[in-house]
């Protein structure tokens, strides 16, 4: 087993140098694959979930005001808009991550 350096600041320097070296290394291909898989999972559900929530809220409002499917339709359209907005935001954050990792 290697002997520990007497001076703790020297050890700190060595740890920092090792960390910097590690950070500069490009991401492993498998790590990128996990990120892509995560993005694929995210994109699909980010779009669908606001539509579902919109339909649920619309259904509750229709029951409440004793109307037919008016609120359900309106909220489904709002849900589509929210889904597109979510996709746009998710794509923005992914682009930011991609540019950051380059």
């Amino acid at each position, binding site marked *: 087993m290697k002997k520990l350096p007497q001076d703790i600041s020297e050890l700190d320097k060595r740890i920092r140098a090792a960390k910097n070296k590690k950070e500069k290394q490009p991401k492993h291909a498998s790590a990128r694959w996990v990120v892509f898989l995560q993005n694929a999972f995210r994109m699909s559900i980010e779009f669908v979930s606001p539509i*579902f929530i919109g339909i649920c809220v619309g259904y509750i409002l229709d029951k409440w005001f004793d109307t037919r499917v008016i609120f359900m339709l309106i909220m489904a359209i709002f849900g589509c808009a929210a889904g597109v907005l979510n996709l746009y935001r998710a794509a923005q954050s992914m682009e930011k991550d991609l540019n950051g990792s380059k």
Partner: protein
Amino acid sequence: MESPLEQFEIKKIIPWQWEGIDLSFTNSALCMLITVSVIFITFTLCLHKRQIVPTMGQAFSESIYDFIQSMIGETLGKDGLKYVSLIFTLFTFIALGNMLGLFPYSFTFTSHIAAVGTLSVFFLVLNIIFGIKRRGLGYFHTFFPHGLPWIMAPLIIPVETLSLLAKPFSLTIRLAVNMSVGHIMLKVLGSFIVTMGIFGFIPLIADMCIIMFELFVTLLQAYIYTTLSCVYLSQAISDEE
């Protein structure tokens, strides 16, 4: 033969009714309790003697902590480091809950929309509280950004509200569905091992491969859940609109 969906059935262990509300202690609650106990005991044992040169247990705990810290650093920046304990708890709870569900006669509480949904809604409420604490009333500009004409309010406010409400839903569905599907697949293939007789080794090998894949999925899903929670938290506390 048992249905593949029977493994998700909630069974009462200690029945308890209070004012018409069912507060029974179920197999789901027992598994959550086991998960929390395992996390608590593991980390207490690993970290009870903290040393400069870490033991294997300490190195293991520190590596998980370091992983969460770097994940928060990437999504929330240096300001997010105060949330490390919250995100660490979330990650270990979900990851271990997913993994314990792979044991025979165990119960996967993360496959239940009610359990994961409650956790996600709790996290959404925390996001709102942190957002208001950090940005004050400016948090509500998330629903109606600066500079937009007032005439757009009836369009933008419902869209932004639905977008916010969809966050816990998307987190919940992603985790619960992935966990349920994997377990159903395991059970279906497992039933073929006996019924196929001498050729039962074919589904057995397939089942073994799927168990390895499921082990990977349990960690991946915990990672995705935690990363997205960090992203949502960063959206709530960031000053950008």
